[in-house]
């Protein structure tokens, strides 16, 4: 059907869309606009909602704030640590699950569980896993003669712990998406490649990798955006602290801290917008790279 829109049909459509639009408007669009406005409030009376002065003061403040830069640095380290590891490990597991193994469905469920479990519950378990004296991880490392590591209390190990937790947490979702991508590759190409003399390794390099690239691309965009927004894991794993001596302070934690703890709404909003721009730039770069390297 290709009917021209009329006033009546448009109104009717709007009527159907309005419940969703209202919710999105109140909880997403309004805050986005409001926080953009708030990032320019230099002098603000929260109790009476009076703005005395507008300007770039908030942005200048965070540019000069060592904590903000630490948060930026930590967040970048986190993204660089989590995204590639998560993609490689989940691709590896997806490849194994895609072969003919017993209990395939069972394993798929197992790997998907972390994704549907609450971060807080998961983090409590991991706090035990990471425990210096009674932790499972140190217990295992002990077999290889590694001295106990203070995963959660040593500033040098806080970030690796956070990365390990997040990689593990993201596996389920990535594996499911990778599995779907793998199943979408026509088996014929593998047969043809076999006949053409390609061993399993070359079939992986020349068939799987390129034909899976749209999936990999999608996963990398989603995981980079998600990793830049990391907060819950920090909050839960380090017991509401940003890690020992701010070693796991991330940008969203910084925003949270400024907003809810220090009540610096302007600064929090400004930091949120800086993060938004960083994510936006990264996504643009990825789209650009993707256009040239992804085979559809």
């Amino acid at each position, binding site marked *: 059907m290709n009917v021209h829109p009329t006033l009546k049909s448009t109104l009717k459509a709007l009527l159907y869309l309005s419940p969703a639009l209202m919710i999105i408007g109140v909880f997403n669009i309004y805050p986005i606009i409001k926080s953009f406005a708030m990032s320019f409030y230099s002098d603000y009376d929260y109790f009476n909602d009076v703005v005395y002065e507008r300007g770039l003061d908030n942005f200048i403040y965070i540019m000069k704030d060592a904590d903000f830069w630490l948060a930026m640095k930590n967040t970048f380290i986190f993204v660089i640590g989590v995204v590639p590891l998560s993609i490689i490990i989940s691709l590896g597991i997806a490849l194994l699950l895609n072969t003919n193994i017993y209990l395939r469905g069972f394993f798929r469920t197992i790997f998907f569980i972390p994704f549907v479990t609450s971060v807080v519950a998961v983090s409590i378990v991991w706090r035990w896993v990471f425990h210096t004296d009674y932790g499972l991880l140190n217990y295992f490392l002990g077999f290889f003669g590694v001295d106990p590591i203070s995963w959660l209390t040593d500033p040098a190990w806080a970030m690796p712990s956070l990365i390990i937790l997040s990689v593990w947490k993201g596996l389920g979702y990535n594996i499911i998406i990778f599995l779907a991508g793998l199943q979408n590759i026509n088996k014929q*190409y593998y*047969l*043809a490649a*076999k*006949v*053409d003399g390609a061993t399993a390794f*070359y079939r992986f390099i020349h*068939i799987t990798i390129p034909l899976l690239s749209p999936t990999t691309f999608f996963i990398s965009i989603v995981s980079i955006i998600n990793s830049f927004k990391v907060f819950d894991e920090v909050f839960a794993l380090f017991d509401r602290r940003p890690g020992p001596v701010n070693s796991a302070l991330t940008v969203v934690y910084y925003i949270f801290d400024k907003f809810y703890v220090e009540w610096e709404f302007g600064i929090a909003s400004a930091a949120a917008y800086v993060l938004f721009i960083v994510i936006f730039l990264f996504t643009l770069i990825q789209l650009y790279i993707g256009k040239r390297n992804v085979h559809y």
Partner: protein
Amino acid sequence: MQVKLIDVTMKFNDVVAVYNLNITIESGKLVSLLGPSGCGKSTTLFLLAGLYKPNNGSIIFGDKKVNEIEPENREIGMVFQNYALYPHMSVLKNIMFPLNMQKVPKKEAEKRAKEMADLVRIGHLLARKPGQLSGGQQQRVAIARALVKQPKLLLLDEPLSNLDARLRLEMREEIRRIQQEVGITTIFVTHDQEEAMSISDQVLLLNDGQIQQYNHPQYLYNHPINIFVAKFMGNPPINILETMVDKEAKKLILTSNEQQMMIPNKLNIQTIQDEKIYLGIRPEELFITSLDEGALQGKITYVETIGRDTLIRAAIGDEPLRVIIPPDTKIKIGDLVGFGMKEDRIHIFDSTGRNISQQLT
């Protein structure tokens, strides 16, 4: 390289796709695998390629049993029924792929790939992706990719099915030429009997996963082992007439309308065991004569001139009969005529469909 299949059987769960195949394909020959859809042609090729492992039997290349050898080490080239070109690689990369896998230096690989592309006339399409090609062009890329590494055995699964009639003719001559030039043992799957007749040294006719007959194409045409082969070879197809044998009256009686038929002279009716036999006679071996001279009488229902032949259909009672006659014959629809047959060209099949002409004369 000589290829031998011994007692090869392939089952998919409860479907028997290939049953007890025993053939020898001589080195350098082109063999057509012919048969109706679903008879196991592709399966046989996949077995030879090593993409399927037989449930039973041995596959022998030269003097080596290759059952356990993986496809990547069998030195074969294959054109798949649906081409299976790599969608993310250009035409050139597709053709070069087997050479890259053999670690042929890049320069040489490119040169050989380009030569092969020119041979199949896609030299101007090298930069395109398979998705940007027509079916026929894709098919030729697939042929080039299969041939470029000069395999010991070339497997072609209906490689010409998507080409137009003229290109099809050209390509099959091309394949034949390349095949003879390189002297490569080739197995060519088709369900077009004319294609099989025209290019092969031997035809292997399959039905329901079983060999019907394996011989020179002309031999299959002239000496079909059973009704299936007789019907499959030749276009328009052979006429099969079901008749009852009346030994006392020394007559054959058409089952469908009880019309009596003169017995071919060569036939010794007393040696026939069955009450019912089938007469097979090709359309070009029938001719029109006067009513009383004909072995059969019938009414003409259809006349069609295709190129140099005139094909007529006649009704012998209800039984249809196809006849090819010289185009200058004066007949029209509705004429009642007699049909004579070249008696030494009649095939006689027993009630199970087996050709018993030899035993009877």
